[in-house]
């Protein structure tokens, strides 16, 4: 970020600090504790989780170190090997991550986020979502949150050829109805699933609206369960008084490890998502043991840059 005067830069820092302090208060109030991620990672460990070309590498003696590109994996590496059965941690972090820009130079992003690790109870999804909604509501004039579940598309595309699956996911991600229709006509898949796929972009809005669209379609149990779980979530969100939520079963997670509920929050004045998160139990397996894990992350610089009013 560039500033014309020192004063401008200090004003920005002040605003960022105020925002961060208020966010931390909310996290602390909900029982989250701060965790400090390590600054350096070993190249050999991180190279499996992100594109190595995006790493900022340092050579220290005979070792290649990487400036942390991501906080979630950093935290999991510390926690998962050491977590005992029955233990759970509610953690928040406020840290900068480093990525190489394709045209040279380093991009620093200040990430603020939460991770709830180890708690397998039913209420973790809704509690985490409600916390995300609290943040969106407090730090914006108006917001919209989209909620989906990565399992829906996963189950729907089970049985499709790998090449077809990749293209279908890309088209669904772009909400490309025209090209999806053409592609669906060429693939082999269960008839009921093809029908749901042809309606995929209509599976949006409230759960009642989505169920109405599917009322004449045969839905297998796996998909039905996802819908029912989202309905429970919807009720909890409505009870808490939050309205600006749109469910979207065509949501494609932008991270391979999401495995369950996924969500993104947009605030007025922002051209892209401000907050994103989801359940990612699958990722924890890689660190030693499958553990329930859910969290979300906010781009703090982006939030402060929008100069959104903070509600008191």
């Amino acid at each position: 970020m560039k500033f014309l005067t020192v004063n401008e830069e200090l004003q920005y820092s002040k605003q960022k600090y105020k925002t961060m302090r208020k966010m931390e208060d909310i996290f602390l109030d909900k029982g989250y504790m701060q965790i400090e991620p390590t600054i350096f990672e070993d190249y050999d460990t991180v190279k499996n989780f992100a594109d190595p070309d995006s790493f900022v590498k340092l050579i220290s003696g005979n070792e290649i170190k990487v400036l942390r590109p991501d906080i979630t994996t950093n935290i999991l590496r510390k926690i998962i090997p050491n977590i005992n059965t029955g233990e759970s941690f509610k953690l928040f972090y406020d840290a900068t991550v480093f990525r190489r820009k394709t045209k040279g130079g380093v991009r620093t992003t200040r990430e603020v986020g939460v991770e709830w690790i180890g708690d397998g109870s039913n209420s973790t999804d809704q509690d985490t979502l409600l916390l995300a909604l609290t943040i969106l509501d407090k730090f914006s004039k108006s917001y919209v949150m989209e909620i989906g579940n990565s399992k829906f598309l996963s189950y729907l595309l089970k049985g499709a050829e790998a090449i077809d699956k990749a293209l279908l996911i890309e088209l669904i991600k772009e909400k490309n109805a025209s090209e999806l229709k053409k592609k669906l006509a060429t693939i082999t898949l269960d008839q009921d699933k093809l029908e749901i796929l042809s309606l995929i972009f209509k599976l949006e809005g409230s759960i009642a609206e989505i169920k109405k669209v599917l009322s004449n379609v045969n839905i297998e149990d796996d998909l039905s369960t996802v819908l029912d779980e989202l309905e429970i979530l919807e009720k909890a969100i409505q009870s808490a008084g939050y309205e600006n939520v749109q469910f979207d079963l065509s949501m494609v997670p932008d991270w391979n490890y999401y495995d369950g509920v996924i969500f993104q929050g947009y605030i007025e004045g922002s051209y892209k998502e401000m907050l994103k998160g989801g359940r990612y139990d699958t990722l924890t397996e890689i660190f030693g043991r499958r553990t329930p894990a859910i969290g979300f992350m906010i781009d703090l610089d982006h939030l402060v840059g929008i100069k959104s009013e903070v509600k008191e």
Partner: protein
Amino acid sequence: MNTIKIACAKGRLGEQSIALFEKINVGKSVDLKSRKLIFKEEGFEFIFVKPSDVYTYVKSGVADLGILGKDVILEEDGGIYELLDLGFGRCTLSACGLKGHTLYKQDGILKIATKYPKTTKEFFKAQGQEIEIFKLNGSVELAPIVGLSDIIVDIVETGSTLRANGLEVLEDIKEATARLISNKASYRFLNKEIKEFVAKLEGALGEAND
């Protein structure tokens, strides 16, 4: 009432876009003959920009929706929703060259001049052909004639420009038509309005095909 801001391409694509909008009673404020670039009416705001800039305006959120060719979309790196194929502006991205020129050099590097480096790289990588790209911004047909490149990758409509320069289509790469794209945040905030607009456009397109 919420306003939908639409970025239209100047030129023929813009004219065809407005023609389509008029079928659903939208775009009455637009005067394509004037030098004005912004037009406002109830529920909509239209801005006219260079075709290759429509994507930038939509991605940045300054425009909620945009109309541009699939050929331009292919060169960008996503981050928007592609809501509808509008059908007009049909053309084909093709590899072209002097008559009878070979498209595949077994032991050589094929030199290609193009406005579409990304699409070109992807196509020839899949074919296993090594290439060198010369990015040009216009009059691409000149390149093989003056010896800058072996072939070109460019959009072809009727093929008359190619023929006039002694070139021909060697291989088709991708078909491109005009698409309606949306900013992701706008899609959420103006969800009802955008879905209604798309449904009306689909209706108008459907009638045209009957």
